[in-house]
């Protein structure tokens, strides 16, 4: 008779633990389901977007990277391509939003790094099924710059040495023919 309340207390404790466990489980599940929405505040990598395209389809995402290649204007909108170090994704953007872009990535320049907030499309019906982002906002995070090319003196020296060898071989081959 003396032991019963103790057992009851233990059972109540177990029930409490179960409740806390299930509460956290439900919370975790909800957090996971809400991940794409919550993540929209943090930049998402191109690999994550491409590999989990169905999960992010139609959601607002933040994507960051370097503007590369050409800015291709199409009426009031333009295509820019943003490279995040792994892949480049096409961004469909209003031309009024790209005024700040001064540099695009190429051999001679490092493009502006920008943060795009926009709607991600796994299969964009407007653009023939392309995977793209329709930008709503853009923020320049790092300014691009021209890349000053310096003469590589090792390469220059190698060119001179090889030129000497080539001239020698060429003269020898002419002598042989004569």
């Amino acid at each position, binding site marked *: 008779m003396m032991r019963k309340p103790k057992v009851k207390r233990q059972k109540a404790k177990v029930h409490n633990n179960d409740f806390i466990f299930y509460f956290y489980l439900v919370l975790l599940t909800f957090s996971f389901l809400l991940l794409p929405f919550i993540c929209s505040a943090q930049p998402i990598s191109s690999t994550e977007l*491409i*590999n989990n395209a*169905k999960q992010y389809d139609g959601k607002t995402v933040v994507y960051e990277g370097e503007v590369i290649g050409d*800015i291709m204007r199409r009426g009031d909108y333009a295509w820019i*391509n943003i490279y995040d170090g792994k892949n480049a994704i096409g961004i469909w953007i209003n031309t009024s939003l790209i005024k700040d872009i001064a540099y695009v990535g*190429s051999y001679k320049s490092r493009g502006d790094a920008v943060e795009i907030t926009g709607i991600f499309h796994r299969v964009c019906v407007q653009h023939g099924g392309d995977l793209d982002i329709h930008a709503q906002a853009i923020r320049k995070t790092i300014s691009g710059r021209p890349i000053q090319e310096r003469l590589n003196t090792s*390469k220059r020296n190698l060119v001179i040495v090889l*030129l000497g060898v*080539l001239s020698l*071989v060429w003269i020898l081959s002419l002598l042989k023919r004569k």
Partner: protein
Amino acid sequence: MILKPRLEDIKNIGFYLGRIIVGLGLTMLVPIFIGLAFGEINPTLDFIIGIEITLILGLLLQKICFTEKDLSWMQGMIVVSLSWLVAMALGAIPLYLSGHWKSYLDACFDAMSGFATTGLALVQGLDHLSYAHNLWRHLIMFIGGQGIIIVALSFFVRGVSGAFKMYVGEARDERILPNVIDTSRFIWLVSITYLILGTLALGVVGALNGMKTVNAFFHGACVFMAAFDTGGFTPQSQNILYYHSLPYEVITVIIMILGAINFKLHYHIWTGNRREILRNIETVALFISIMITFLITAVGLKQFGVYSEAIVLFRKGFYQLISAHTGTGYQTIYAAQFINEWSHLALVGVICAMALGGAVCSTTGAIKMLRIGIIFKALKEDLKRIMLPEKAIVIEKFHHIKKVFLEDRQVRSALMITLCYLVLYGLGAIVGMFYGYPFLNALFESTSAAANVGLSCGVTNINMPAALKVTYIIQMWAGRLEFMSIFTLIGFLVAAIKGK
């Protein structure tokens, strides 16, 4: 008894190899000119180093192995197989010097991929690559697509009766004109004419799409070279997705199909015999094969609901399919999307298209349509023999420029090459699986490499094992040369070791 190769054999091979190397070296003048035009100092130096090493090696080989004798069949075949390996090693020098390739092996991988018109790439930071290096990547596809030997025959090798032996060794057994050097020049005439037209078309579309004029025409020339030669390199990392343009996709589809057609058929179309397109066994087989493989792919895509809109399904499905069938490898989806989104059935459709390829004597790789047509004709003939009375004489014909009676010799040759390709696809897939890739991924990438296509489902990347990179290099090389010259080289090496 196996006979050990004589010194004379080695001298002949060395001399003609030297000539081809010199020819190859001179093609590096084009990127040097581009580098100077765009004011790219270090890339220009990379190509000057490349041309110097190439010319030194070529001249030395010609001097050491000097001969006035003509090539035998065996020597011609070995010159061809070695030329492609040497071209890879020398063509990779300027690429490696640029610093955009992690290792010399990676640069060799891309050089072989370029020469063999495959299109698989290990380049890093492609969007920051110089104009000179980018042009070289596409130019080697143009050279490789026509054939390294064709380049040499057209411009650097004159009056050699052994020329035909080298021409055949490069998997081109059809003479368009009576003289093989005239044939080579005709192939260049066709290619240069289309190059001008294709560059103009793509350049204008690019400019209208908002690209800078210089970039539009530079990209136009590069994309044309890679599309017509069914290669698959592009100047930007996004492949054809970079352009976001339907007209660009339509033009590249037309160029890819032109590249997949037999040069002999081009000759007949150019000389007014347009009906040949409708009657030729290759074009008929290509049309039927595209329809069947597209049907498989489309059903696979529809089953999984990958694309809800029919027009999108057609645009995405048909583009990847044509790119696979012609052996080009241009993509308007990301590599990972093949595996993550496309169904297995759709992938099987694309793999079948890659494995079959385009026409013989074109710029494509793989089994090719003439062989598929011949095998089906042989099957039909055998079925007729079973079904008709025993005394009936069964004759099967097909139309390939002229009416041709089906012979056992043709069937045996077609079956043998088909078998070699199937073994090559399978071996590459086994190596891929050995390194832990799933069966379908490994088969997809292996077929793509061996059939010189270039579509990727993501297996090809800088972190893949070195042995797998070497496997794909061998597959690209063997697939492009259609085995015979490579078997001859192996036989030559065996004879050198075991011969008496």
